[in-house]
């Protein structure tokens, strides 16, 4: 399986890159810790904070690898090898997801210390963490391939992911906003991850039925995978 061969190389090469560490590990975990310490009882906040951790973990890792590979032209090693574009994209998304799951899991362990209730459905939580990770990794890959100068990829990603913290209801529930803002929430990819994880952890949801959360997140994963493959085709 070429996907696993590439994924293993990605982990070895990029796990300790500054972009992965600063934006992918330190930022989300400090963010989680700050909220946990400030509010104490974090049960309702936990799904949002975990989503943020997964978002930053996945996107930072994927973006970091693309920035380095395009700048140092190591990306061409993959393109000149007998590997299909979808395998390259699949490997990048897989390894970004694994990294995001790791950051999400550490975030969960921190939050667990401050939570009053047990997780309602652990298996569903892992499922949501995984599909959210693939959607976020796909988004990061597509954006990183789209930007002309790879060095700007992290800036463009921040333009997308920082507003999403607010518009997805990760920190403040969308139910507390006017009705029109819920529409903004519905067009934010992260909303479905937050809402789905809230259901898996607490047994209730804010806005969207969890079946739709799962469905939309899976569809987003497929969409970003497709867009990334097409972007690769356009670029090379």
């Amino acid at each position: 399986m070429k996907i696993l061969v590439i994924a293993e190389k990605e982990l070895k090469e990029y796990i300790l890159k500054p972009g992965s560490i600063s934006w992918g590990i330190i930022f989300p975990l400090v963010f989680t810790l700050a909220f946990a310490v400030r509010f104490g009882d974090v049960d309702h906040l936990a799904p949002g904070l975990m989503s943020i951790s997964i978002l930053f973990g996945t996107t930072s890792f994927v973006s970091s690898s693309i920035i380095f590979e395009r700048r140092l032209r190591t990306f061409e090693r993959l393109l000149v090898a007998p590997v299909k574009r979808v395998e390259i994209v699949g490997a990048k998304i897989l390894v970004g997801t694994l990294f995001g799951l790791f950051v999400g899991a550490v975030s969960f362990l921190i939050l667990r210390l401050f939570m009053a209730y047990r997780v309602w459905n652990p298996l569903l939580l892992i499922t949501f963490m995984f599909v959210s990770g693939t959607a976020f990794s796909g988004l990061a890959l597509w954006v990183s391939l789209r930007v002309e100068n790879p060095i700007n990829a992290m800036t463009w990603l921040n333009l997308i992911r920082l507003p999403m913290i607010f518009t997805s209801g990760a920190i403040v529930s969308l139910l507390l906003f006017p009705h029109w803002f819920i529409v903004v929430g519905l067009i934010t990819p992260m909303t479905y991850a937050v809402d789905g994880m809230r259901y898996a952890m607490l047994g209730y949801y804010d806005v969207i039925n969890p079946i739709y959360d799962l469905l939309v997140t899976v569809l987003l994963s497929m969409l970003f995978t497709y867009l990334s493959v097409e972007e690769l085709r356009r670029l090379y």
Partner: protein
Amino acid sequence: MEEGAVVAEGLTKRYGDFTAVDGINLTVKRGEIYGLLGPNGAGKTTTVRMLTTLTQITSGNAWVNGYSVREEPLLVKRSIGLVPDVSNLYDELTVEENLLFAARLYNAPIERVRELIREFDLPANKKFGKLSSGFKRRTTIAAALVHRPEVLFMDEPTTALDVSSARNVRNLIRLLNKEGITVFITTHNMIDAESLPHRIGIIKEGKIIAEGKGRELKELMGKGMVVKLLVEPITSKLINEIEAYSPTFDEGFIVVTVEDVDEFLEELFDLKMRLGFKVKRISTELPTIEDVFVELTERNGCSCGGCPL
């Protein structure tokens, strides 16, 4: 399309209005070293990128080992190795890990990695990022050979190498070729161009303007000799007077190609008397590939970068 190891027919690459490669036709025979020689921006790298499937072809087509670059890119990729102009392996992986990764991508046996490490005398456990530029180059070449490709593409193989490393790489290329690998190199390095290829194509502004063996290309210069002059002062009047010889400039020397040296010297001394310049040095040489290259690529519109006027 089985004739050559590499065949291009009307190979063209356009970026918007700009044509980087303009309808190239070429055939590289199996077992030869072919050199694509051209100034910066002439289209060498774009040509190699198209032939190795890295850049989409705008029009025309190419065949590598009989496989169509357009229709059978995966088969092309399986049968070629590419050494780009920058050594682009993974810094955080060791030499061995880099080669193992390449082997796994091509489903090559693991023993081949050990074989290459031994043959190329590589430091297996050293991280690629910590290697000298010479070793980086050798490792990059080794990685391109892990699956025993029939055709090896090398873009500027000796760029950024010191004299000794460049010589080692040239010896390595000859050795690989002796083992039966067809080698396609692009270069603007005249030592590479003079010493490596069996045949040379000279590319300018996306078109191949001359092609042949080194000797054949030198014959394009006629039966002439290259005369190098160091005179003081170089004036525009002097340049105008020898305009008919299409002079070029090389590190302060005026370089001209002449059919009859004796006749040129007579004319030169006549000019010396009239214009009053001093001849500091003068030498005559048989034309080199560099002379052919300069003659063909710089004649229409000086791009020598060293013109004193």
